[in-house]
């Protein structure tokens, strides 16, 4: 069946090799376009002045942090059900990028909060949920690197990703409830500014750019993980880049 043809690391490796450079180039192009629209074309916002331009990085990064975690859960379910080796590697490749984007979402959110509400940290429902999502990422990365046996760490990681994904909506709901319950002085983060169309295009361009960036990095990293995981397989040892690296190593 064609679908499972690429489930084998041996076939996925060259495919990822062709894909990730193309995605990287496309991502940089879209990022430049997005930044140009966001910073050079879009007007300043009525209430927030120029500070609102942080949304051109904050919103895409927050979306991607959430989407990557769902992608990890998708690969994990695939791995648990079909027991494909590639799914564990793919989840492991996505996790660091997801964690980075979750951290950036908090960082840019705090820097946006300071001019808006005078404090770096607002216990807003979405920021708090993002903080917890970052812990879920770190938990996955810590667990998979703590277990040496590759097969067990893949499946244990898959379990954590699936259990985490099931809990993300529950956590968001409970934090939302908690936030409205203790509705203190701080203005809630939820009403995002009215989006002029050109602002929206800037943000969508940036979202696509970050999405392609994440995909490119993940595919590039999964190639390294495949090399390490299948280092005993013959097809890896016959790869041209491995032979080239070997002669290079032999020379030094």
């Amino acid at each position, binding site marked *: 069946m064609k679908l499972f043809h690429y489930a084998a690391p041996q076939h996925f490796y060259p495919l990822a090799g062709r894909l990730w450079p193309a995605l990287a180039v496309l991502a940089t192009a879209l990022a430049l376009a997005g930044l140009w629209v966001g910073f050079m074309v879009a007007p300043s916002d009525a209430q927030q002045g120029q500070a609102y331009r942080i949304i051109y990085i904050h919103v895409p990064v927050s979306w991607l942090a959430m989407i990557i975690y769902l992608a990890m859960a998708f690969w994990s379910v695939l791995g*648990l059900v079909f027991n494909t080796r590639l799914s564990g590697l793919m989840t492991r490749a996505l996790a660091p990028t997801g964690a980075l984007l979750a951290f950036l979402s908090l960082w840019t959110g705090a820097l946006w909060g300071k001019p808006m509400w005078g404090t770096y940290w607002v216990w807003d429902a979405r920021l708090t949920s993002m903080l*917890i*999502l970052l*812990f*879920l990422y*770190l*938990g996955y990365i*810590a*667990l998979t690197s*703590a*277990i040496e*046996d590759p*097969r*067990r760490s893949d*499946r*244990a990681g898959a*379990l*954590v990703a699936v*259990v*985490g994904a*099931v*809990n993300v909506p*529950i*956590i968001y*709901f*409970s*934090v939302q*409830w*908690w936030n409205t*319950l203790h509705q203190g002085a701080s203005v809630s983060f939820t009403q995002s500014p009215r989006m002029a169309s050109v602002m929206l295009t800037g943000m969508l361009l940036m979202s696509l750019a970050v999405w392609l960036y994440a995909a490119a990095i993940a595919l590039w990293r999964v190639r390294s993980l495949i090399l390490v995981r299948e280092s005993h397989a013959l097809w890896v040892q016959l790869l041209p880049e491995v032979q080239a690296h070997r002669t290079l190593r032999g020379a030094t």
Partner: protein
Amino acid sequence: MNALALPSPWQAISGVLRRDLRMALRRKSEWLGAVFFFVLVAALFPLAIGPEPDTLRLIGPGVLWVAALLASMLSLGRLFEADHQDGSLEQLALSAAPLSWSISAKLLAHWLISGLPLVLLSPLLGLQFGLAPEALGMLALTLLIGTPVLSLLGAIGAALTLGVRGGGVLQSLLLLPLYVPVLVFGTGAVDAQMRGLGGQAHVSVLLALLLATAALSPWACAAAVRLALE
């Protein structure tokens, strides 16, 4: 001379339950330690924050809930580790009864030993924080529903980090995000009760969480334990 009739899985579950309870009673130091931890942490906060009754009443539910959460996490190590070391977890995996059933029996035994004492002690400690009687009642009720959820979720973390170096720290990193909903609704119920709004909504959500985790957690634990036994 072979044992012939194969009793139903319910017999197997009661066997696991009685065995764990008997072992716990024989070795009290482990689980009593977790209960003392709960009492000590609850006693430390007034010393740290000052005896002023209003602030204590405000932070009371939160402090007691976080202390109960940490105490139950403390006693998670004992859940599978000893059985994994002496090989009885393998025998349990080979049992005729389904592994998820045996694990739910182990979780029930674990909750009876580590969760129930916290529930019974919480009204007593609540008095230290000057909570009103109905608030004490609500606190005990939310802990009664909440601590099984803590044990059920904690068991997944314990099973995943079985035999892994540095498993204890890893467990807390894995479990704290999952504990957030229980903590939010547990403390929220007592808080709403104290403000006269009544905590029924929170309690119903806590019950929903309990039913959901009771259904999913044994299956996930069984998968994680089989993984650890490989």
